[in-house]
């Protein structure tokens, strides 16, 4: 916790030190600045707290979001009628917590709305009962996931006991070619690094590639760092971050903004800072990436062939109904999903729309796009993106998690093959027997148009 003057401090060390309350038995008690309670957990967590006689220490620092259970499409003209959503409303009201409800301007997926509204700020700590909490590292906030009983503890004490993780820096160099996106970068990283190296670690992403990315793209990178097994992930906030945050709904204003900038500018790893591991990955000449197996690290360039794997990994190929050595290009697909906290921000919809403009979804393919938040949806409508999606034959859903985990009832039929912009291709994640290929929004959109897996780059040339 003390920064060794001879070694300097990492960005992670600095945020950690500013929030450390005390240490005991190998764990640090961290002060938590932002707590997000989602609709799956809200009613149960708040009821348990009542049962235990626990009061919320800082109700003014907690937000309740409706995301996991939001139905993507209205049934009988009614939206948001599920038991979870109702219970969440009741619980939020009862405890005086700010709720971003279905239909309201701020509603959306927690890790999309919190940065977008300027609620997950550089140098802050952020906790949610959702493994993708580290997403907010893309805006320089330290995101940590926890279980629901732990959330009761966080709400009651505004702190969480955390074992300080190992620290790994992943330097990414190169720049994005046309038609490629942050999703391709992080899928490539997953393939290179694998699932062992970063397990339980705090990752800092750095390098020229990261510097060149927008905040939205950095959020995508940190989101999928979770799939590397990381406990958390960060990108040092810089001019790009500050420009993106300025004027956000809850971002500091005027004098406080200037004061914040002063504090944020030092949020970077010192030159002498040492990491437990330093990994360099060259992203030059990167091709669009797509997964072929049932872990996000089972990934390959779109023009490649399914590798011939050892026994253990064969299971993934078998589940996916593929043969070793097979090309994925040309494989027929049934569905496309563009959405989730990984890839449902404005830039994601823009890149998909670029592919879709003037084109149609292939016959027999069901294509769905679900903006990550009401804010994204509004902006996408204003820029004409929604019209492009609709004209192409996509269904346009209500902001929420939708088909990512199927909590909103949006499941896919058994055996169907789907190209999805989400973060997990686990067996059964999107429904029993569903075969998920993770890819970028552009790759997903191109697959929708062709009705088969294909290289999105030809679709993007000349706009």
């Amino acid at each position, binding site marked *: 916790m003390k920064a060794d003057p001879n070694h300097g401090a990492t960005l992670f060390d600095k945020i950690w030190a500013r929030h450390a309350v005390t240490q005991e038995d190998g764990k640090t008690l961290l002060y938590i600045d932002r707590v997000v309670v989602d609709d799956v957990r809200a009613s149960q967590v708040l009821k348990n707290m009542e049962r235990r006689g626990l009061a919320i220490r800082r109700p003014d620092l907690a937000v309740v979001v409706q995301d996991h259970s939001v139905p993507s499409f209205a049934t009988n003209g009614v939206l948001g009628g599920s*038991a979870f959503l109702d219970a969440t409303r009741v619980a939020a009201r009862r405890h005086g917590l700010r709720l971003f409800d279905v239909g309201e301007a701020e509603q959306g997926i927690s890790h999309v709305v919190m940065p977008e509204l300027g609620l997950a700020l550089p140098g802050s700590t952020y906790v949610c009962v959702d493994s993708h909490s580290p997403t907010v590292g893309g805006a320089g906030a330290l995101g940590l996931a926890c279980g629901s009983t732990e959330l009761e503890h966080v709400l009651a004490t505004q702190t969480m006991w955390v074992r300080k993780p190992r620290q790994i820096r992943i330097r990414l160099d190169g720049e994005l070619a046309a038609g490629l996106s942050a999703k391709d970068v992080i899928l490539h990283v997953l393939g290179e690094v694998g699932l062992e190296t970063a397990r339980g670690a705090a990752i800092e992403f750095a390098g020229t590639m990261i510097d060149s990315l927008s905040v939205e793209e950095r959020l995508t990178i940190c989101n999928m760092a979770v799939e590397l097994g990381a406990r958390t992930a960060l990108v040092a906030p810089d001019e790009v971050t500050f420009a993106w945050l300025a004027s956000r709904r809850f971002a500091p204003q005027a004098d406080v903004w200037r004061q914040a900038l002063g504090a944020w500018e030092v949020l970077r790893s010192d030159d002498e800072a040492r990491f437990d591991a330093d990994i360099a990955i060259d992203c030059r000449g990167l091709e669009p990436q797509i997964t072929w197996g049932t872990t996000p690290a089972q990934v390959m360039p779109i023009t490649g062939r399914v590798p011939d794997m050892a026994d253990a990994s064969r299971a993934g190929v078998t589940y996916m109904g593929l043969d070793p050595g097979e090309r994925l290009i040309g494989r027929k697909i049934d569905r496309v999903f563009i959405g989730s906290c990984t890839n449902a921000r404005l830039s994601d919809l823009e890149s998909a729309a670029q592919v879709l403009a003037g084109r149609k979804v292939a016959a027999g393919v069901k294509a769905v796009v679900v903006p990550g938040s009401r804010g994204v949806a509004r902006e996408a409508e204003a820029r004409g993106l929604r019209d492009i999606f609709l004209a192409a034959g996509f269904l346009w859903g209500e902001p929420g998690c939708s088909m990512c985990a199927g909590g909103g009832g949006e499941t896919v039929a058994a055996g169907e093959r789907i190209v999805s912009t989400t973060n997990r291709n686990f067996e059964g994640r999107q429904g029993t027997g569903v075969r998920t290929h993770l890819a970028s929004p552009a790759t997903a959109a191109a697959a929708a148009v062709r009705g088969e897996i294909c290289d999105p780059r030809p679709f993007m040339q000349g706009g």
Partner: protein
Amino acid sequence: MEKFSQVRGAAAPLLLDNVNTDQITPVVFMRSLEPDYEKALFGRWRLAASEAEPFVLDRPHFKRAPILVAGANFGCGSAREVAVWALVAHGIRCIVARSFSEVFRESTLKNGVLPICLGVADQSAFEQKVVAVDGQAAFEVDLVAQTITCPDGTVFSFAMAHNERAALLEGLDDVALTLRHRALIDAREAQIAIEQPWLQSVRS
């Protein structure tokens, strides 16, 4: 929280790595405010198994096994605590794994379930015994002594952080434990309010 000191019974082998919480409790079984946790547990795998070759926890000897023995990175993926609740609903009180996902491990502790990682040197020896015994005799896990005793009398020791052990043994309330540090929390909160005033209310 429920106390844990000792548990005696069958040890069920599920010797796979990277068993994730989507597999432990698939979302399809969770679409209710009061889901059937017992039924949800490994729901998809159990449905897919045959009568001739049932899923390990459905085999007669393991139906109420209090000990589950797993591979590396057990409980990875989604942070859902229902995965632990479902294991508890089945009667699991102790999980011995090569390693755990951190969030899952914290959740076991909150629910009075003991997570054990044996030393690297002991792991496969222990797993072999579990497989060989095949539910025919009882293992005994003792948190006071920090040992697992196999039916043949072999004893394996495991390490456990002092606080975690004390909390499990006494069934202590995590919030009460933390609030012993209330003065320090107050001080840190006050300091953040001064140094980073922009991290205040989300209600404005």
